[in-house]
């Protein structure tokens, strides 16, 4: 496992970055004047990194993720995904996106939901089934193929949506507060599973959260953001061992990192209101 990790970081250092943002800004026109959702974001993310974006609401963390996904369009600067524009990267199906809600289609059972992107991408039936089986196994949902989303708990639905995002094996996973709506016990459990998954697959993950614990526990790197205008105020390398368990949250190293994130948020006036 350790060998694989060093291997991965070596290739990551050699290859070009997965995400390259140079002076990216994004401004909305609203009734109260322009809103600077993102301002001069400079960021480079290498393959295999697990990067958390943390900050209070309105800091632009979700907006940045959506800009990477080509769901929003940067109004200034240059944003590259795998060296391409976000639009071209999306057309190449470069990423899997996990939304805040599971967004499973209620008229499809779990297996058919997992196979939705595969149908769109034109894979044949056998391949679709095989991949659905494999990814449901990955998120521990084997046996729920024929269930409908509304028959599953919130945590299971979100796991199914992760399986769907993984089903076409994108090298890049964008996750927008995927566990925000779940209770803490389920969230801890899914965090552990996500970490294992990242270790096993070596995907690049961009993870938006507003939980300091979650960010420190999961990440190899934490980007702290601040609102009005949305900007990066700290970029923290998180060098805890890769195969960490939940207990690591009690260690001094973990607490020190959490404190640094918290002080970063405080410096950005996240606790103003």
């Amino acid at each position, binding site marked *: 496992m350790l060998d694989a990790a060093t291997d991965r970081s070596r290739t990551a250092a050699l290859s070009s970055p997965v995400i390259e943002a140079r002076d990216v800004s994004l401004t909305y026109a609203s009734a109260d004047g322009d809103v600077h959702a993102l301002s001069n974001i400079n960021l480079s993310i290498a393959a295999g990194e697990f990067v958390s974006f943390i900050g209070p609401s309105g800091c632009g963390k979700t907006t940045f993720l959506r800009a990477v996904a080509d769901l929003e369009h940067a109004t200034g600067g240059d944003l590259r995904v795998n060296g391409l524009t976000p639009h071209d990267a999306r057309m190449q199906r470069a990423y899997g996106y996990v939304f805040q809600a599971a967004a499973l*289609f209620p008229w499809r059972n779990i297996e058919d939901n997992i196979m939705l992107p595969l149908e769109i991408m034109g894979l044949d039936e056998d391949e679709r089934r095989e991949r659905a089986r494999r990814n449901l196994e990955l998120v521990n949902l084997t046996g729920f193929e024929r269930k409908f989303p509304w028959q599953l708990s919130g945590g299971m639905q979100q796991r199914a949506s992760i399986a769907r995002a993984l089903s076409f094996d994108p090298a890049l996973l964008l996750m927008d507060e995927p566990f925000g709506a779940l209770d803490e016990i389920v969230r801890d459990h899914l965090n552990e599973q996500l970490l294992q998954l990242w270790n096993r697959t070596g995907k690049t993950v961009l993870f938006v959260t507003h939980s300091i614990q979650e960010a420190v526990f999961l990440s190899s790197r934490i980007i702290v953001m601040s609102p009005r205008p949305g900007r990066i105020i700290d970029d923290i390398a998180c060098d805890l061992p890769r195969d960490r368990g939940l207990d690591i949250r009690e260690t001094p190293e973990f607490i020190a990192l959490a404190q640094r994130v918290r002080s970063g948020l405080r410096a950005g006036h996240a606790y103003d209101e």
Partner: protein
Amino acid sequence: MTRRSLISIALVALALIATAFLMRLSPMAEGLSRQTDPALLCLTAMALLLTAPWRPRFAAVPTFAASALLTGAALLLLRDADISGAAGAGFWALVGAALVCAGATMTALSDLALTDPRARKLRDIAIPAVFGLMLVMLAELVIRGAGVPSVLLPAPSSVAWRFVHALPMLFEDLVQTFVKGVVIGFVIGNAAGFGAALLVQDRPFFRRGLLPMAGFISSLPIVGIAPIMVMWFGFDWPSKAAVVAIITFFPMFTNAVAGLSGASRIDMDLMHSYAASPSQRLAKLHIPAALPFVFNALKINSTLAFIGAIVAEFFGTPVVGMGFRISIEAARMSMDVVWAEILLAALVGTASYGCLVLLERKLTFWHASQRV
């Protein structure tokens, strides 16, 4: 049902039957005791009623039997020319007793605590069935007992008799009006409405322009265009199908537009992230999401279509068709034929509505309104 309420209901029914024995059945006919067969039926009914409070759980059985026997007795009495059309207090007391018994049956059925789902389902069918039977029985006894002229309201029995004897004619009318006019017009109108909605769904310009117009046109009394359709398409069924198509177009159009644009933001983002083509978005997201709306429109349209086709025939038709028959037979005072046609329309209308509901359940089982 409690034993006490059963006892009081039985007492009321017994008192009513006793009244029938004591009072004259009509100005020309004496009390029930002079009529051997009806009197025997009534005495049996009284005996059954006395057993009802004994086993409250099964009270539905004796009360229903008593109600049937009392109705039978009243029907036997109506064969007497002295009573039919001139019924008096004794006869109405008997009808009242039959009603009380039927009411007790329904109460007993609905109070029954059932755990077996199949038994529940059976009960859910039985209660409206008893209620319907009671209404038909009441209509029959009141109309014949009071001698309501058949031009105003024919007795259910004479409508039924006419229905059976006019079956070949009714069938021809059904083919003309329903199979040709309604079904063809319904398919054309709904398909066109849905197709138009597909065309405008991602063209905001069309949608903003067409929706208010659709609202305006659908608020017109569309049946008024029937004479115009007769001018355009002739007397036969095509003009009726045209009326039906126009009537059904707008409900389908407005509902389908609402349904097709009803997908949530997050679902659309999801399809966008997969770089799905417009036709894939339509087939895999927008059309399935629109189905509940489409079925609403289909159900509204199934009633509208039948009304439209029948009324359209009032404005010119070959000598066949349900609307034609209703208008011509009403003018000839043969109200039993008119009622037989109405009965046929009700049966076919209910059946087609029922088929739509079944199809809806099969296709939109996932929707919150359909989940069990």
